[in-house]
């Protein structure tokens, strides 16, 4: 709601709106966020240590 705003071309936004609905996104914002997240996950490296990852699952009754 209070997130940052970026400017994109009107026609591009129109196309994005059309595609977002057809692809099953709940909004154009969700579509564009997904695109950015997907690209960033390819570019960004590193993260939590293996131990940190395992620790977060500790206590989950199902496993």
């Amino acid at each position, binding site marked *: 709601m209070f997130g940052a705003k970026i400017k994109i071309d009107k026609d591009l936004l129109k196309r994005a709106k059309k595609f977002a609905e057809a692809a099953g996104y709940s909004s154009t914002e969700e579509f564009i966020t997904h695109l950015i997240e997907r690209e960033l996950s390819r570019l960004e490296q590193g993260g939590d240590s293996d131990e940190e990852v395992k620790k977060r699952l*500790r206590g989950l009754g199902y496993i």
Partner: protein
Amino acid sequence: MFVQKLARIHRGIAFFATSAVSRIRPNRRVFAARFAIRAAVCLLAAIVRCPPAFAYIGPGAGFVFVGSFLILLVTSVLVVFSLLTWPARCAARAVRRRKIKRRHRDVGRIVILGLDGLKPELAERFMDEGRLPNMARLRERGTFTRLNTTYPAISPVAWSSFQTGTNPGKHNIFDFLSRDPATYLPLLSSVKMGKVERSLSLGSRSIPLGKPTITPLRKSKPFWHVLGEHGVSSCVLRVPVTFPPEKHRGVMLCGMCVPDLIGTQGTFTVYTTRDDIRCEHGSGIVVRLEQNGNIMRSHITGPENFLRKDREPIHIPLQIVRGTGADPAEVTVGGQRVKLTKGKHSDWVRLRFSPGLGMKVTGVCRFLLVEADPHLTVYMTPMNIDPDRPALPVSHPMVYSSYLSKLLGTFSTLGLAEDTWALSEGVIDETAFLEQCYTFHGERERIFFNALDRTGEDVCISVFDITDRVQHMFWRYLDESHPANRGKDTERYAGAITELYNNMDGLVGRTLERLNERDILIVMSDHGFQPFSRGVNVNSWLHQNGYLALNDGATESGEWFADVDWTRTKAYAMGLGGLYINERGREAQGTVAAGDEKRLLKEELIERLSGLRDTQQGQIGITQLWDTTAVYAGPYLGNAPDLIVGYAAGYRASWDSVTGKIGPQVFEDNVMSWCGDHCIDPRLVPGVFFSSRAINAHRQPHIMDIAPTVLAAFGIDRPGHMDGTALDFE
């Protein structure tokens, strides 16, 4: 930051002011006004009559005074602003709602009671036996039917479909676990906890400049957001996969997947003089006490110190004194003395951890004296985030949990608060576990009824977990031949599940008493239940059949595929129902090409694993596998497992398989206290759907239908992205 804080305070005040004033009846208004005037007069008198005092007041006190004054001033301005704009906001809301109310004048409140895991077959049997009069009333006057659930039939997946009205391909939750294709390690599927990006280094200290990011991984849009856009408020209590809380019109208390204070899904601690207590599955911490007289000193290990570079955990001292008679032990922590009675949980105890610079991180826990003599054993629940001073947001607005805590007392905030692992590890017994479940349930009922009483012609949703947890841990009592009965009591709690259903019927009855004819009550579950007698290690099967390779010389693998040779592996199972192809270009060491090679491998695995026989028992352990491209559709399909494994009734992914261990056995008995489950073929574990009004349905409803049904009841058209179809109330 400051502006955000102001906005948050403003929203909190606006919510409480409007809800409080609007719900007070006229005679109560007079009483409230008199009470406020008397309180103000008393306060003024106390200030005026206060005798002079002499003390040194340093600059620190001045800062505190100015800081407090500023907060008071800003709060006062916001209160006045909120009250002045209240009529305008009400008018704007009424205009927005007029359009939808014109279309549906016969709908008042919609109340949804989610009873996680309530099994339709048992509910039906108990209704026929006359044990569930309130549910039977709903069946007679309204609707009772089975509710189709998601693939797989797992709570985070199913409740995400409930919220969004979409299939998992659109909401991105496919299991409790997802996996990191770069490391093959498991990840919690619902939320990503980030770190603080920047910090200021000062010697051994590291001052964070900002807050860690908490990113929700559930996508799409919950139906209460759509309701809010049309002026309808929603009170959403403990619906799974709602952490971190998202802003919407109304209030929310987060449910399943909220972590404990140390960032896990619930780590208990046991203090003991024994040396034979082990937590073999690593879900608890065992602290040995020195048997030296009656006073034993130890400490509680809290969260990491975020002000230190080495991130050492913060400790607070703990003292346990062995007593006699009615109070056989006393725990002292943070200046609080808690008397413990054997077998009974203490009240909530507040734990304050000090990282430094005057900061405090608070959690809450309960203690239980397991035994006092000759050995002393004290169990401490996982440290819940304190709802009064939450270290992480567990509600929307953030002050809502604090408000509930002050009004109704401290309550559990942990997503999976009922400590199933403490029972599975034998640290607590069935009696203590049941007491814990019902204590937490009592807190949640009080919160629910408080919210329900404040709900206008809006929506109130509350999910109760007790039905799921008790069935997971007590199902063996319904099945004499269950392997988990070996060496355990089989009689004392034979009626635990029957009693559970009776108690839930009581909850339904108390809810019905508060509703009028225009209100609609929906009682539903996300899945049913079946016994979990045999575990299936799909990874071991994949290894034995040449799809998964171990490092040279290894015959077994440790946790999380420690000894797997990925360069020779084609497929692996992860989570409770997912099977992934080791795809080239997607997984870090993928071996199978996307396209035809992958498609053929999937077809081969479906053919070979569907109908897999447990030769020892002479039964089928896996009914069917589904290609996720056939059962899901949506933009997040690429994050889904490639295949979903449907286990037969009585079977489930084995404990070793779920944690990526590979051994010689494909099938094995499940002897854990966790003896019932639902992570199987979804067709075998449908949920229930009751409603106080009959529905015109020519098919069995699906959990995805609930969201559009609620929208339709308020006259709101189904958004295009939703997959569910609205049920038509008569």
